[in-house]
Structures are given as structure tokens and as C-alpha cells.
């Protein structure tokens, strides 16, 4: 019970960003609880992640280093991780809320009969008193997530079951190497004992994956367009502004649905989360499901014909006007003043 696990998602030697974000958060939580931070990686050549894990302050790196585990398949990953958790008894286990994490974390939680909270956006440590039983719990993991279509924020706890498990959304937590390097001692998981033949019953016959071509997560400046941009042609103005400012173009779901922008650009609850230093919202009303993906931006400029659009409440600057008029002027004045 003196450790916290982070599942490391890794393909072809590349670790998913969200896993590093979780290590950063995991290090903070481990320090707070006075426990060890332990990473678990299954795949081909995962022992080679040792130096990276050390940078993120990992104390122990558990590996099942075998081609069998790549590409990801639900059953072998579930069997091996479940067996390791049963043996090592971590108090907390964290996964990225990715296709992979959301596929097998529920299965692991069911096998262990312990609770799992999906799609957390915040994790904290805190206490709890049960009003009915009068029992007091210290140092629980507060698993905080949007619920009910993003209209409420719920704090979930697992008072009586261990481990406390959560999947965490990509991009919502900061990623930073640890102040102090970890030992990242590599330990082999006894994975062969954990597997049975039936765990290998599902076969991958075909697989076509492409690198993400559009990646707006890391952009320092995001120029985002909504339904109010009006057309794909007008969206070109946003691309031009993003280009001169050295930023990326984002979009609301309404803009994606209307075909103004690619799905990879969608920001919000069902899209990506961004935290740029400047977010320029063009013709975006500012519904909760959208703002959930951008409300941690350092500065927000909203361009909207409606002075009372909800986005105004998040904005540092609210420009009342039409996108097609304001954006070209911003481009013009930027060019003029940057010479």
C-alpha cells in the first residue's frame, strides 16, 4: 500500500503524452502521500524507457518486455496488470482516458472489484467523513470529473476499496520532469504466469494507424472558430491569423459538424483540451462543453456579434463585431506593428 501506479501507454517506443502528464501528477500525489511512484509498461523494448522514467521521478519501472503486448490487446494487458496489482497492492492506479485506457481499465477494475472513475480532469488528496457510518477516512483520492454532459462537476471517492483507480483526460494536467530524478529501477513482471491461452484468443488481423497530423494540444496560441465563422472560406481567415501569430487553429463542435474544420481540431469535452497562453474565440458562443476544453487558457479574446455570449464571461477582451471584419484587421495591424 506504499505505492502509486501509473500505466504507461507506449507504442513503437513512443510514450503517450498523457502518460507523462500522469507521471507528473503521480509524482506530486506520491510526495503528498509519502509513497513510491511506480510506472508499468507492457510492450516491445519497454525497458529502454528507463532514462525517461527517471526524468519523471519514477522510483520503479515494472516491465513486461515482449512483442506479445504490442499492439495493445485487451485481455493480455488486463491479465498482467491485474496480477501485478494483486501482488503489489498499490493504493492508487492511474490510466490515460484514451482508447486504450478506456478499453481495459474498466476490465481491470471489474476483475479487482474496485471502483474506477472515468475521464477525470483533476485529482486531489483529501479526507472524508461518512455521515451515516460516522467513519472517517484520511488521504483519499478525490477523482474530479465533469458529469451530466459537462453541466456539473462531480467529486468521486472510493472509501473502502483499493486500489483507487481513475482514467484521466489527455492534456488537462501539466507535464514536467521531476525536480529530482528517480531511480527508475527496472523490474520484470512475472507475466507468463499471469496469462492463460484464452487471453490470446483475440487476433489483430489488420491495422492502419497514422500519426496524428493535426496536433493543437501543445500550441501556445490557439485561434478557434465556431459556427459563427459562417463558412469554410471564412475559416481560412483564422488559418491566416494563426499562421502570422505562430499558433494553431481550433474549432467548436458546431464548426466541425458544419464541415468548417477537421474533427482533430475540436476543442472541448469530446475533443481535445488546450491550455495556451492566448485563446482567440471567433464566433464561439461558449457552451460548457466547449469551455471545458479551454477554460485554463491564460488569456482569452472573444470575437462575437453578441455582446452577451457566454464566452464573454471567460474573456479578458470581448470584441463585439463580425469575425469576417475583425480577423482581417487583426492580421493587418499585427503585420504593420511587427515590422
Amino acid at each position, binding site marked *: 500500500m506504499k505505492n502509486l501506479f501509473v500505466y504507461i501507454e507506449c507504442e513503437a517506443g513512443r510514450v503517450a503524452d498523457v502518460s507523462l502528464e500522469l507521471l507528473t501528477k503521480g509524482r506530486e500525489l506520491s510526495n503528498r502521500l509519502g509513497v513510491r511512484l511506480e510506472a508499468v509498461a507492457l510492450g516491445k523494448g519497454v525497458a529502454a524507457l528507463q532514462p525517461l522514467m527517471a526524468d519523471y521521478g519514477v522510483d520503479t519501472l515494472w516491465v513486461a518486455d515482449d512483442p506479445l503486448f504490442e499492439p495493445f490487446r485487451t485481455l493480455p494487458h488486463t491479465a498482467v496488470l491485474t496480477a501485478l496489482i494483486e501482488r503489489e497492492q498499490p493504493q492508487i492506479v492511474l490510466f490515460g482516458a484514451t482508447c486504450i485506457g478506456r478499453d481495459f481499465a474498466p476490465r481491470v477494475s471489474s476483475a479487482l472489484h474496485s471502483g474506477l*472513475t472515468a475521464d477525470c480532469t483533476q485529482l486531489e488528496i483529501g479526507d472524508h467523513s461518512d455521515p451515516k457510518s460516522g467513519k472517517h477516512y484520511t488521504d483519499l483520492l478525490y477523482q474530479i470529473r465533469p458529469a451530466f454532459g459537462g453541466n456539473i462537476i462531480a467529486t468521486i471517492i472510493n472509501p*473502502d476499496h483499493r486500489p483507487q483507480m481513475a482514467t484521466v483526460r489527455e492534456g488537462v494536467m501539466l507535464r514536467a520532469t521531476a525536480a529530482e530524478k528517480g531511480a527508475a529501477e527496472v523490474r520484470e513482471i512475472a507475466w507468463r504466469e499471469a496469462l492463460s491461452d484464452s487471453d490470446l*484468443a483475440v487476433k489483430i*488481423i489488420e491495422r492502419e494507424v497514422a500519426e496524428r497530423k493535426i496536433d493543437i494540444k501543445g500550441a501556445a496560441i490557439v485561434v478557434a472558430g465556431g459556427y459563427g465563422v459562417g463558412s469554410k472560406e471564412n475559416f481560412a481567415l483564422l488559418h491566416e491569423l494563426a499562421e502570422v501569430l505562430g499558433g494553431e487553429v481550433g474549432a467548436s463542435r458546431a464548426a466541425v459538424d458544419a464541415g468548417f474544420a477537421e474533427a482533430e481540431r475540436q476543442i472541448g469535452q469530446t475533443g481535445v483540451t488546450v491550455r495556451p*497562453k492566448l485563446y482567440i474565440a471567433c464566433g464561439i458562443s461558449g457552451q460548457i462543453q466547449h469551455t471545458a476544453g479551454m477554460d485554463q487558457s491564460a488569456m482569452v479574446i472573444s470575437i462575437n456579434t453578441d455582446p452577451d455570449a457566454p464566452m464573454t464571461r471567460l474573456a479578458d477582451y470581448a470584441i463585439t463585431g463580425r469575425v469576417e471584419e475583425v480577423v482581417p484587421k487583426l492580421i493587418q495591424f*499585427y503585420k504593420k506593428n511587427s515590422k
Partner: protein
Amino acid sequence: MEQKFQIVVLAKQVPDTRQVGRDAMTAEGTVNRAALPAIFNPEDLHALELALDLKSRIAGAEVRVLTMGPQRAAEIVREAMYRGADGGYLLSGREFAGSDTLATSYALACALRKVGADLVVAGRQAIDGDTAQVGPQVAEKLGWPQVTYAEQVVKVDGDRLQIRRRLAEGVEVVECPLPMVITVNESAPACRPRNAKRLMCYKLARTRSELLEEQSWVVERVEAMPELQIVELAAADIEPDMAQLGLAGSPTKVKRIENVVFQAKEAKRLTASDEELEALIVELMAAHTIG
């Protein structure tokens, strides 16, 4: 007699959280659930379509819907029947109240064992919780493999299915032995619409409890026609370990619910005039926010 192949679709009636507009929020900013229409969870409709498609490809296949919820959730079973399902089950009772995903999965798995299934198909996630946990957890409880994010069954090959899955960065085709749990993605084909003839035929489909409120001619009709009987299952019918049901069987507890209220900043208001926009650009450049 022909060998039957039972496909069970897990479906949920949910409040339409997409309709949470300004009117569906109270003055205090809480969700006014009563103002939201109850609908067939969108991805469960995709799951129903995938099941109905398979019914036409597997000899002796039947599609039945299993839903857990209050009495009014029987509507989900009727809706599925209008679109092509052969019947369904309503799992209902106070014992299930307060279930988290694990307790829900346990109850559904018990019910599935009771009614018998060769294949379970569910939507990836429900729009009121968005957890995507119930499908995989039901699979684990049954000890079956799972195929998540399914778009299409590309091949039925004896006791194996080849299924195309949608991943974040591409697609994958997997081959999985039956029985299995499939969860269906929103990118899968949309569900066929209601069929007018089926609507006429099945609008009288009722659960046992619903019949208590009906006129005698309806009761007689339903009693005479088994296909109009929606099977109602109570906790006792699925022979569960009671400790694993409902609130008591749920490891996760809700500690706190907060409404999303914006920390309203005082926005600096600008017009679209040249002077104001240029002043803004100059200010942002001076602060090194841009440039």
C-alpha cells in the same frame, strides 16, 4: 427445431443532456432533469443496428434488448421492437438504485446469465455518464472477451467474428471467438428507422407492471400474444449476491456535486473599430503575449 442464436443488446434510457440549454438549467445553475426529454441513448441505437444487421447474417439469430431502469424504461424495449428487435427485458427494482458502473455491470451480467446470450452488443457509452465502463465490465463479469469501439462486423466465420474498430489514430480489424461483448462507436452505421407495420403491431407490448394499469382488452390481447410481453425481471429473478447490487455494491461514492459556474472575469469591452483593434494588438505585443 432450428438452433437459436441469442443476441442481446444492452440499451439505456437517458436524459437528453444535449438539450441542456439555458431553460434546462435552474436559476441556481442546477440541472432541471424534469425538463429534459428521456431518449434512447444514441450509441445504443448504433448497437441495435449492428445487432439487427447480424441477425440477417446468422441463421436462427434473434435480437432482444436488455435495459435496466425504472418502469418507464420499457419504452426503450418498445422502441427497439419498432425498429426490428424480437423482444426484450426490463430489469427494474429499488435494489438497483444508486448503482455505479460496477454494480450496474454486475446486475446486467446476472440478468444475461439468466436469459441466456450468445453475443452481447452495447453502445460504447451513455450520454448521461460518458464512462464507457459498463460494456467492458459486463464482459469481465461474464468471462468473455470484448471488442470495443466497433463500427462493423466485416465477417461472420463460424464461431468467430471479424470486427472493424475505430481507434483514435486509425482502424483495426480483429478476430474474436464467440461469445463476446461488442461495444459500438458513434461512427458505426445509424439505426434503421421505425417500421410502420411493426409500430402498429408492437405498440401494445407491455411489461407485467404496465398491464396492471391497462384496460381489460389490452390485458387479454397481451396475454394471448407472447411476442407482446416484455419480460420484467426483478432483483430476485436474477439470483444475485445482494451485497453487490445498488449503492451498497458500488465502490465509488459521489462526495460532492458542483454546478459549473464561470468565475466571471470583467472583460474589457472593445468595438471593431480600427483604433481599438490596433491598440489591442500593440498592447499584446508589448506584453509579449504575441510576437
